[in-house]
C-alpha cells in the first residue's frame, strides 16, 4: 500500500495542532474552527479509504488466499535505538483492529469537531475564550490517538499513550480558571500516570525477556518469503514461547515473569480504561467541555486499555491467569459502575459511570475469550462492542452536551420534561438509550449479545453476573432518560430562553450518530475482526449477524433489558414518590452508591494522609533537619571549635603571661622531678 495516505493521516492532525497552537491566537475564531474541522474531515476521508482498502481491497498484503486477514506494516522508521534489538520505531500497522479504530476515531473526532463549532459559543454566538486552543488540543488528541492505534511496537504505543494522557489533561483542564476542572485534570493525569508506571514496568520486563518491542514479533510468526508481512496464526507467539521456555521459565514471586509483565501492562490499561480501582479519575474528568467527554472519555481514549489487551491478546492467551484477572477486574468494575450510575444526579456523571461499566464489558469479553469456544468469539465481541459503544456513547454525550448547553447545569433536577422543547435531541437520546440497553435492532443489542454468549461459553456464573449488569444498564439509562425528558413539566424561568434544539452544527452530528447507532449492529464484525484473522462466517450479508445470533442467550438478555426498562418507566416516567421510598428502604445502599462507594474519599485519604502526610512531609522534614542539619551541624562544630581555639588567642596579655608562666613552671617542675 502506498505510504502517502497513512502518513497524511498522522501528519494532518499534528500539523493542525502546531498551526493552531502557534498561530491560533492571531486567527479569527471561525477560521480556527473551520481549519480544525476541515483537517479532521480530510483525515476522516483518508482513514475510511485506508480502512476500506484493508478490509475490502483484497490486496495480498492484507488478505491471504484462504481469506485470513494479515497484519501489514505500511512503514516503520527508527526513532530511537536503545540496543541493536530494542528499537523504538514509529510506524503504521494495519490489521483488523487498527483498521477498525481508524474508522471509529476519525468518525467521532470529526463529529466532535463539527459539534464544538456550535457548542463552544454562548447563546449570543460569542465564541468562548480559548476557542482556538480548544481546537489545537483536539487536533493533538486526534493525532495521538491515531498514532496509538497504528503503533507497530509497544513502545510507540506507550509514547502515544502518554500523549493522549497529556492531551486529555489539557482538555479536562480547559476551563483552567475553575478550580474543580484543574483538580480533575490533575487527578486524571496522575492516576493514569500511576497506571502507566505499571505499563512501563511491564514493557521493561517483557522487553528484557523477549528482546523486542515489536508487536508482530511478540505475537506472531513472519510469513515465509514476504518481507514485512506477518500472519496471526494458531501457533501464536511461538517465538516468544520459545524465549520463555529457553530462559527456564523465569519466575518471580510465585508467578511466571510473563504473567507479571502482562498483568503490569494490563494495569496501564486499567488506568486508561478506568477499571476499578483506578477508575476515580473518569467521573471527575467530566469537568471538561462535553464534546471532549464524548470524544476522549467515552469513545476513544478510554478504550485504549481494551485496545492494548486486544493488541497483545495472543500473549495473554499464553498465560490464562492474566486473562482471569482481567475477567474479575472487569466484572467487578462493570457491576460497581452500574450500581453507582443508578444513584447519580449529574447526568454527565451517570454517563461516565455507564462508560466505565461498558468498557468493563469489553474487558470481560476479552478475558473470557478462548480459541476453543466459538473461535474466540469474545475477542470479536469485545471489539464489536468497542465500535458500537463508541457510536452510541458519543451520541449520548453529545445529546447531554446539547441539553447542558441549553439548561446551563449538569443536574437533572434542573431539566425534567424537556421532550417537548428539544424533540430531535429527545429522539437521538432515546435511540442511544435503546442501543445501550440492548434492544433489537439497535447496535448495542448485537455486540452485547455476543459478549454474553462469550461469557456463557466461559462460565455460567459470569454469564449471570454480566446479564444482571446488562439489566442494570438498561435501568439506569432509562432512569436518566425519563428524568431528563419526562418526570414533570419543565418550568421556564422568567427572563430565560425556552430550551430548544440547537443549530445544525450541533444537531447534525447527533442525527448522524443516531443513524449509525441504529444500523451499526448489522456490520458483519465476525467477518472483519477476529483474534487470528480468520473470518467466522462463510457467507456475508447484511443479516449475517442476525442469523448467527445465539437466540437463547439473546432472548434472555432482551427480556432482562425490557424488564429493566419497564421498572424504570414505572419509577421515573411521572413524578412520584416511589424512587424516594426505594432510597429510604435501603438507605445504606443508596448512600454508598450515591457516594460512589467512597472511593474518592479513600484515595483522598491515601494521597493526602499517607503519601503527603506520612511520606513526603517526613522526607522533607528529614531532609531539612537531619541531612541538612548534619551538614549544618558539621559547620557548627567547626565554627564552635574555631571559637574555642580562638579563646586562646584572646589578645589578653595577662592571660598569655599566666599561661606562659604556668607552662614554664610545669616544665621546670617536670624536669626537676625527672632529674631527681
Amino acid at each position, binding site marked *: 500500500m502506498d505510504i502517502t495516505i497513512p502518513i497524511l493521516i498522522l501528519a494532518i492532525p499534528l500539523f493542525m495542532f502546531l498551526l493552531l497552537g502557534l498561530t491560533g491566537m492571531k486567527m479569527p475564531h471561525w477560521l480556527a474552527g473551520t481549519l480544525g474541522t476541515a483537517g479532521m474531515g480530510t483525515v476522516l476521508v483518508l482513514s475510511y479509504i485506508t480502512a476500506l482498502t484493508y478490509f475490502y481491497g483484497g490486496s495480498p498484503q492484507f488478505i491471504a488466499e484462504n481469506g485470513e486477514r494479515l497484519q501489514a506494516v505500511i512503514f516503520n522508521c527508527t526513532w530511537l535505538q536503545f540496543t541493536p534489538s530494542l528499537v523504538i520505531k514509529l510506524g503504521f500497522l494495519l490489521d483488523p483492529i487498527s483498521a477498525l479504530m481508524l474508522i471509529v476515531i476519525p468518525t467521532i473526532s470529526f463529529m466532535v469537531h463539527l459539534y464544538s463549532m456550535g457548542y463552544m459559543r454562548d447563546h449570543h454566538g460569542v465564541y468562548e475564550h480559548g476557542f482556538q486552543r480548544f481546537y489545537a488540543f483536539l487536533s493533538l488528541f486526534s493525532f495521538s490517538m491515531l498514532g496509538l492505534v497504528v503503533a507497530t511496537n509497544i513502545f510507540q504505543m506507550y509514547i502515544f499513550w502518554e500523549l493522549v494522557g497529556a492531551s486529555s489533561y489539557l482538555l479536562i483542564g480547559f476551563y483552567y480558571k475553575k478550580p474543580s476542572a484543574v483538580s480533575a485534570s490533575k487527578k486524571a493525569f496522575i492516576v493514569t500516570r500511576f497506571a502507566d508506571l505499571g505499563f512501563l514496568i511491564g514493557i521493561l520486563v517483557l522487553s528484557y525477556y523477549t528482546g523486542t518491542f515489536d508487536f508482530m514479533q511478540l505475537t506472531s510468526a513472519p510469513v515465509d518469503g514476504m518481507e514485512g508481512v506477518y500472519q496471526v496464526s494458531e501457533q501464536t507467539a511461538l517465538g516468544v514461547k520459545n524465549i520463555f521456555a529457553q530462559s527456564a521459565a523465569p519466575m518471580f514471586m510465585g508467578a511466571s515473569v510473563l504473567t507479571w509483565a502482562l498483568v503490569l501492562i494490563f494495569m496501564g490499561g486499567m488506568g486508561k480504561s478506568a477499571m476499578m480501582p483506578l477508575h476515580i479519575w473518569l467521573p471527575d474528568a467530566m469537568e471538561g467541555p462535553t464534546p471532549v467527554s464524548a470524544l476522549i472519555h467515552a469513545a476513544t481514549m478510554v478504550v485504549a486499555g481494551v485496545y492494548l489487551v486486544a493488541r497483545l491478546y495472543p500473549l495473554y492467551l499464553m498465560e490464562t491467569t492474566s486473562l482471569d484477572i482481567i475477567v474479575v477486574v472487569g466484572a467487578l468494575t462493570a457491576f460497581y459502575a452500574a450500581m453507582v450510575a443508578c444513584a447519580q444526579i449529574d447526568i454527565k456523571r451517570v454517563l461516565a459511570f455507564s462508560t466505565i461499566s461498558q468498557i468493563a464489558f469489553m474487558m470481560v469479553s476479552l478475558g473470557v475469550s478462548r480459541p476453543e469456544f466459538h473461535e474466540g468469539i469474545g475477542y470479536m465481541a469485545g471489539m464489536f462492542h468497542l465500535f458500537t459503544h463508541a457510536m452510541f456513547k458519543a451520541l449520548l454525550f453529545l445529546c447531554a452536551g446539547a441539553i447542558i448547553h441549553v439548561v446551563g447545569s449538569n443536574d437533572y433536577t434542573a431539566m425534567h420534561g424537556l421532550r417537548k422543547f428539544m424533540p430531535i435531541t429527545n429522539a437521538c437520546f432515546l435511540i442511544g438509550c435503546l442501543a445501550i440497553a440492548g434492544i433489537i435492532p439497535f447496535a448495542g443489542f448485537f455486540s452485547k449479545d455476543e459478549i454474553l454468549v462469550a461469557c456463557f461459553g466461559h462460565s455460567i456464573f459470569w454469564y449471570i453476573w454480566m446479564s444482571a449488569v446488562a439489566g442494570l444498564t438498561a435501568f439506569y439509562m432509562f432512569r436518566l432518560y425519563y428524568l431528563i425528558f419526562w418526570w414533570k413539566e419543565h418550568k421556564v424561568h422568567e427572563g430565560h430562553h425556552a430550551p430548544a434544539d440547537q443549530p445544525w452544527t450541533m444537531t447534525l452530528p447527533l442525527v448522524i450518530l443516531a443513524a449509525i447507532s441504529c444500523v451499526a449492529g448489522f456490520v458483519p464484525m465476525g467477518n472483519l475482526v477476529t483474534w487470528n484473522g480468520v473470518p467466522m462466517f462463510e457467507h456475508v450479508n447484511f443479516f449475517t449477524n442476525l442469523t448467527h445470533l445465539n437466540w437463547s442467550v439473546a432472548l434472555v438478555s432482551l427480556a432482562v433489558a425490557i424488564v429493566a426498562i419497564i421498572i424504570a418507566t414505572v419509577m421515573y416516567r411521572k413524578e412520584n414518590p416511589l424512587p424516594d421510598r426505594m432510597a429510604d428502604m435501603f438507605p445504606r445502599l443508596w448512600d454508598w452508591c450515591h457516594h460512589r462507594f467512597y472511593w474518592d474519599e479513600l484515595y483522598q485519604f491515601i494521597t493526602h494522609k499517607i503519601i503527603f502526610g506520612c511520606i513526603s512531609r517526613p522526607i522533607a522534614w528529614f531532609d531539612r533537619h537531619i541531612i541538612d542539619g548534619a551538614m549544618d551541624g558539621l559547620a557548627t562544630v567547626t565554627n564552635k571549635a574555631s571559637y574555642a581555639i580562638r579563646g586562646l588567642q584572646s*589578645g*589578653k*596579655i*595577662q592571660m598569655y*603571661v*599566666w599561661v606562659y*608562666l604556668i607552662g614554664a613552671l610545669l616544665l621546670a617542675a617536670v624536669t626537676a622531678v625527672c632529674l631527681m
Partner: protein
Amino acid sequence: MIYYLIPALLMFCCGVYGFVTRKNMIAMLISLELMLNAVDINFVVFNRYLFPGQMEGMFFTLFAIAIAAAETALAIAIIINVFRAARNVDVNDLNKMKH
C-alpha cells in the same frame, strides 16, 4: 646567699601576681618593674657570692636598668597615647584592634 635570693623571689612572685591581676596598664607596668628588679637582685647576688671580683653581673644589671628605663618611657608614651584615644587605660577594654 639564700637570704638574698628569698626576698628577690618573693618580689618576683608579687610582680607576677600584680601583672596577672591588675587591669590598669600602669599598674601592670609597675608589676613588671618589680619582676625586673627581682631579676636584677639575683644577678648581683650571684655575682657577689660566686664570682667575687668580677663585674659581669653588675654590668648586666646596669644594662638591664638602662633598658628598663627606656622600655618604661616608651610604654608610658604608648599608654598616654592610648589614653588619649580611648580615655581609658584598662587593658580589657582595649580590644578594638581585635575585631
